[in-house]
């Protein structure tokens, strides 16, 4: 229920970046990354294809750059209790060892983090600069992940954040949320909210 409304416009064309990267390049870059094992590489690539098929207008240039040196680590030294975290500054994807026996849909979790990687320009992910829109950005990432691969796990991830993002999408315009996210530009969203009459 929570995830359906924001996505109606996705089938209109929207160019959110001139992409030089294509799936063939990405496959080569991923294969050459010795930090990631083959099984994870296969899983990642499958999800990248799903993403690209649904959102062909979204540039994969950042993804290609990050995949060259991306590291994936399991740790029990998480700062919080989340199942996963993408450290965009150091290009490391962490999984929380202490929570990995819980009933998450790992395809969904990996897609969630892949979207973070795709939307990362190394300074921020999506429209979240310096943590100012942390919850909203997380919620929107969750909406996208659910749209792309669903969630067959027992555990919901960030449902409240997703509802928040859905509400903002209805008020500001789903297209503006999408554009703001993949262009790493919060001003697009803020201007759309002001235009809708919201007091910032």
């Amino acid at each position, binding site marked *: *229920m*929570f995830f359906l*409304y924001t996505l109606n416009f996705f089938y209109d064309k929207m160019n959110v970046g001139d992409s030089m990267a294509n799936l063939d390049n990405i496959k080569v870059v991923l294969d050459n990354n010795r930090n990631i094992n083959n099984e994870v590489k296969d899983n990642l690539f499958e999800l990248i294809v799903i993403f690209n098929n649904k959102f062909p207008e979204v540039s994969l240039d950042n993804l290609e750059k990050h995949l060259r040196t991306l590291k994936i680590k399991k740790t029990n030294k998480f700062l*919080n*209790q*989340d199942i996963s975290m993408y450290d965009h500054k150091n290009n490391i994807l962490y999984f929380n060892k202490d929570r990995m026996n819980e009933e998450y849909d790992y395809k969904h979790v990996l897609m969630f983090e892949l979207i973070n990687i795709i939307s990362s320009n190394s300074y921020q992910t999506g429209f979240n600069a310096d*943590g*100012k*829109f*942390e*919850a*909203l950005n*997380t919620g929107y990432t969750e909406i996208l992940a659910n749209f792309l691969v669903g969630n067959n796990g027992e*555990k*919901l991830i*960030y*449902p*409240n*954040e997703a*509802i*928040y993002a*859905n*509400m903002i999408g*209805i*008020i500001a315009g789903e297209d503006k949320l999408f554009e703001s996210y993949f262009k790493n530009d919060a001003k697009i969203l*803020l201007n759309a*909210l002001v235009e*809708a*009459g*919201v*007091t*910032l």
Partner: protein
Amino acid sequence: MMNFNKLNDEANYYSELSGKTGVNSWDQDKFQTGVINMIQELNLSKEQIEKLGNLMVSNNQELDMEPSNNKSVVEFEVFAKNKVDTLEQNISMSKVA
């Protein structure tokens, strides 16, 4: 008066607290009231009002939280009725004109 920055700060607070504790710590009822306050003066369409209404959570159990009875859902129903009545009034007045 609720503005976007205050609502956003509230969302960030709940989200961070939930992450730190590992327990969903959102006060969903209070948050929803905040949303309603923020949108009071907006010119929303019937479709937008309906979609927002469908997102309002009446029982936090839907979100794997402790069961609740969120009064904000009733607040929203009142808000929605007033908004839709105004919209329909405006439509019939514009037809007369």
